[in-house]
């Protein structure tokens, strides 16, 4: 029988057996953080919270790329859209995120040329077909996306595409985990580590953070069985007081990760400091183009340097990303801030915790 890798990991009988084990193992009250937005979505979609013991709280972490994009970067995307002769290419979710004065979606309705793409290669196609225009790609992503953007840059060089550039707001996961652990008031008893990111980084990328903070950490896939399994492992580590770094997604994640992808990423990009929404600047947590690829840097090409901008008044996205607040504890949630009228990015992105809470609970 061929494995489809979906139904097998949504099997009701297997899930019920895991849930039973979780209830049996769970004694302490625990706060577990799923770092990745795709986990957040999956937890809601499959109703995972509803089957867990009352003492287990799942928190959504800073793992939705749209949600952690700093206000000044959103402002830069909007500014690009306002320039004459520029086509802004973006992943869909970004289009609704409110900047300080507008959104890409509103600029589009005003006549700006903003196009939704599914990968950097779509943006490159648009650049090929519109040689008389400048095409700017809003590069927002983690280790999963950055290698493809790097491959896009190399393709741009090969084809001598001089009307294509990227604005890099790319981010790295392990430094964010460390920053989270250093933040006052943060109380997390374990990390459900991201599956896709770990396919690229490998388990070893988390070792330094794990050893420094000695926090239970489990890499998990995205199907309900994967997530329930990771929750069980985190409960067991906590109950036995034996923190460990475990890989519960071995069908996709290795210790070393995807060496080829990392190589191409490090060929084109260099590690830099980056601003995260709600967290602020985290040293060495971003990736920017290396000097030899700077002609593809839209910030340099267009002299785009937006000032730091305050996050919207009353918006608790920052605290929600740190696990310090739940969406219910935000004064704007479901009142001023809804998926129809989002104030903060966590309500915009389909992976954002506020949008997920709004949609599914």
């Amino acid at each position, binding site marked *: 029988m061929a494995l489809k890798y979906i139904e097998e990991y*949504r*099997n009701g009988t297997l899930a019920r057996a895991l849930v039973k084990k979780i209830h049996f193992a769970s004694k302490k009250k625990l706060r577990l953080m799923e770092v990745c937005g795709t986990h957040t979505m999956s937890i809601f979609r499959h*109703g995972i919270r509803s*089957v867990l013991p009352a003492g287990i709280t799942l928190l959504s972490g800073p793992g939705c790329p749209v949600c952690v994009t700093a206000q000044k970067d959103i402002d830069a995307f909007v500014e690009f859209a306002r320039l004459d002769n520029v086509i802004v290419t973006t992943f869909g979710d970004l289009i609704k995120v409110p900047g300080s004065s507008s959104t890409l*979606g509103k600029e589009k309705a005003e006549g700006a040329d903003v196009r939704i793409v599914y990968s950097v290669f779509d943006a490159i196609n648009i650049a090929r077909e519109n040689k008389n225009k400048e095409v700017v790609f809003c590069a927002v992503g983690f280790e999963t996306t950055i290698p493809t953007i790097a491959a896009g840059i190399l393709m741009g060089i090969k084809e001598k595409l001089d009307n294509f550039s990227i604005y890099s707001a790319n981010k790295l996961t392990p430094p964010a985990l460390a920053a989270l652990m250093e933040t006052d008031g943060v109380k997390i008893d374990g990390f459900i580590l991201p599956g896709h990111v770990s396919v690229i980084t490998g388990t070893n990328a988390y070792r330094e953070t794990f050893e420094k903070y000695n926090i239970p950490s489990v890499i998990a896939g995205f199907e309900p069985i994967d997530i329930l399994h990771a929750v069980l492992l985190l409960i067991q580590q906590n109950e036995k007081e034996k923190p460990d770094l475990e890989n519960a997604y071995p069908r996709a994640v290795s210790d070393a990760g995807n060496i080829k992808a990392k190589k191409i990423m490090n060929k084109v990009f260099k590690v830099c400091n980056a601003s995260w929404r709600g967290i602020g600047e985290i040293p060495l947590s971003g990736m920017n183009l290396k000097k030899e690829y700077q002609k593809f840097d839209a910030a340099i090409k267009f002299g785009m340097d937006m000032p730091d901008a305050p996050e919207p008044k009353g918006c608790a996205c920052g605290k929600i990303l740190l696990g310090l607040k739940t969406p219910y504890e935000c004064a704007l949630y479901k009142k001023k801030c809804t998926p129809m009228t989002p104030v903060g990015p966590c309500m915009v992105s389909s992976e954002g915790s506020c949008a997920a809470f709004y*949609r599914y609970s």
Partner: protein
Amino acid sequence: MTEEKILLDHGSGGKASHSMFSDLILPLFENPELSKQDDGAILNIEGTKLAFSTDSYVVDPIFFPGGNIGDLAVNGTINDISMCGAIPKFISVGLIIEEGLPVKDLKIILQTMAIAAKKAGVKIVTGDTKVVPKGKADKIFINTSGIGVIPPNINVSGSNAEPGDKIIISGTIADHGIAILSSREGLKFDSKIKTDSAPLNTMVQSIIQSGCDIHVLRDPTRGGLGTTLNEIALQSCVGIKIDEPSLPVRGAVQGTCELLGFDPLYIANEGKLIAFVPQKDAQKVLEIIQGDEFGRDAVIIGEVTEETSGKVFLQTKIGGVRIIDMLTGEQLPRIC
């Protein structure tokens, strides 16, 4: 702040479309027929009950696996009329054509419209054509309106759902939206998913002639099954509980949705209906639907509950429970 503008989201069939209808359109046109908010208006003209419906089609691309904008436009209005419990009779067609459209494309579209109308036994009796300068429309937009006759003693409406009703879907969900997506420029999948665009009038007539008690008929088009169920829960002031394992989704559709992060519950269908039927008649209606050429994969997917009025819940495969909300934000642009 910029002035409020219409965004693509307003055309998604989800929450933004609903608020545009109830905040902007309904207050200005308010009348009992419109306020029912069914797929078509139900009119009583000198003792004869008629269903009257209109729909515009702006799908991009205009040709896609299994169909084109032409048969989609005819089937769509046939289905909207059928969902009122009516037998569709006459259809009008309005064409808005962009300068430069190849005549052979127009011919193919018109031919498929003629075939679709013939198959469903409806006549295209009036119409209009306009041509606009290049760039002022996208190839071709089509409006169809239609009239159907509602047999005596038939009372089908989204506001008739009752606790205990079983909910039947006539086949797999999300085929149309994914067929459009997979044929769209820039997203080329090697998938064999075709649109499910089909006329459902024969199926509806068989259901109605059976004498079974039918409370609600609805075709879950734009906004998908999830949005349609929410509309009915609100219209009927009831709760709805859906059983995830029973939801029919093709493997290739499921796979594409997983890959792109879409939920099949919010993807459009163009040849499916949902029927709300009291438990006593549910099995019989299910068998009638399964006996129709477009209903072979029909199944019961859930039931109406007294509790949690206005809300739709999903019992997930792993035994969890979650809410199904209306679609917020567009999942896919211009699918119909």
